């Protein structure tokens, strides 16, 4: 392979600014998507373990349907499929305020919420049943027992798998380029289109993703260590 690299294309012209904008959009998209995913995941993950069948069934349908369909299909569904059904006013507002970004955030959040739900459910099921029974015996209602006892412990137990899932969310935010959200992969392609230097552009994008993922994993390893519950999990402590 004979290929003369021209790394300067990455900082000459507009490329540098595009990369930074792409990085900012990726972080923004992932952060908002993560908040939605965490909220949906905690609620539906807890619902799947409650002693009341209709709630369990509802959460199961949500989790199984959303996590078993490709994210790309959800991106198209939320971006092309849903807005035409919305009331005129909301639709107009959306298309004036970056509809593709909001559709992307929603698709990412709802899809990963279903996957996060499994993580949280795993955490809840790892808690001895007696914790719940003790909470109820103390006079807490089921809702209070979940809010004050079960969910806080489950969250601490699920930090390692939840970190993994959050990194998947960050990487999956690249799928939003298909509905033309100008995130990092999209900007990488744009630099390639303008400069015709594909390998340099792809290298830049790849390195940024790697740094983000490795960085977050390193930070979370410390957090995990701090939040480990002594006695409940072997590592940490």
């Amino acid at each position: 392979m004979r290929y003369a690299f021209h790394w300067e294309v990455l900082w000459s012209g507009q490329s540098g600014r595009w990369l930074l904008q792409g990085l900012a959009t990726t972080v923004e998209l992932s952060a908002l998507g993560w908040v939605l995913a965490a909220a949906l995941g905690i609620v539906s993950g807890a619902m799947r373990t409650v002693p009341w069948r209709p709630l369990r069934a509802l959460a199961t349908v949500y989790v199984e349907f959303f996590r078993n369909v490709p994210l790309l299909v959800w991106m198209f569904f939320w971006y092309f499929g849903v807005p035409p059904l919305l009331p005129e006013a909301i639709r107009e507002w959306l298309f004036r305020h970056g509809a593709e970004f909001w559709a992307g955030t929603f698709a990412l959040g709802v899809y990963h919420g279903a996957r996060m739900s499994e993580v949280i459910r795993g955490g809840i099921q790892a808690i001895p049943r007696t914790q719940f029974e003790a909470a109820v015996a103390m006079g807490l209602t089921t809702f209070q027992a979940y809010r004050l006892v079960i969910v806080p412990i489950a969250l601490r137990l699920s930090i390692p798998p939840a970190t993994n899932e959050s990194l998947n969310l960050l990487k999956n935010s690249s799928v939003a380029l298909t509905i033309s959200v100008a995130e990092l992969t999209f900007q990488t392609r744009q630099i390639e289109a303008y400069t015709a230097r594909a390998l340099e552009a792809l290298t830049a994008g790849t390195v940024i993703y790697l740094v983000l993922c490795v960085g977050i994993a390193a930070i979370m390893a410390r957090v995990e260590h701090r939040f480990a519950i002594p006695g409940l999990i072997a590592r940490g402590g």
Partner: protein
Amino acid sequence: MFDLSVIVNNFAFLVVQGLLGFGGFSGGTLRLAIPAIVLGFFLGIFIGIARLARSWWISLPATLYVEFFRGVPLVMVIFWIWFIIPQLLRFPIPEYGVALTAFVIFEAAYFGEIVRAGIQSVPRGQVEAATALGLTRPQSMRFVVLPQAIRNMVPSLVTQMIVLFKDTSLASIIGYVDLTKAAQIVNNREIRPFELYLFIAVVYFVCTYSMSRIAARFEHRLA
């Protein structure tokens, strides 16, 4: 409002062409997913074993391989293969080749981790017993460790197969006519995005959910 006729009229194109891959386009979700699962798993076995090798010059490249591909998005890898293959081979290859190469390389990293965990789940005594019986290291790996390891891996393997099956939708980005692309093609003509994308969501769901159900039954028998 909800117009089912668009699904009925294009059912053959979506399912036969998009999902199965028979028709005017060379495409098909299954035609991509099945070879990608088989080849990705085989490459994954080698990577998983290499990660556990005693010599660092075997285990280090395997570790770097896994860490690298687990740190970048699949979309990025698809674009890499798309641009790098014409540079290396001096001629372009069809989308099918690009997509299959990207999936095998990318998913092998994930399969490799599953294989490694599976091998590590086999008690040490098994290898020691195999050595005591006079088996060489490759022999004990082939006849003693791997058969037990694969049995332990089944649940995670199925999960990964389902992930890969869903990931093949990303091949539509480079123009491969899979189920997702087929729905896009129909939508360009009919402009019924809600019905079409919901329909293919259901098709994907039926495929992946039945995979997980069959696997659950199979695991029950194995256990």
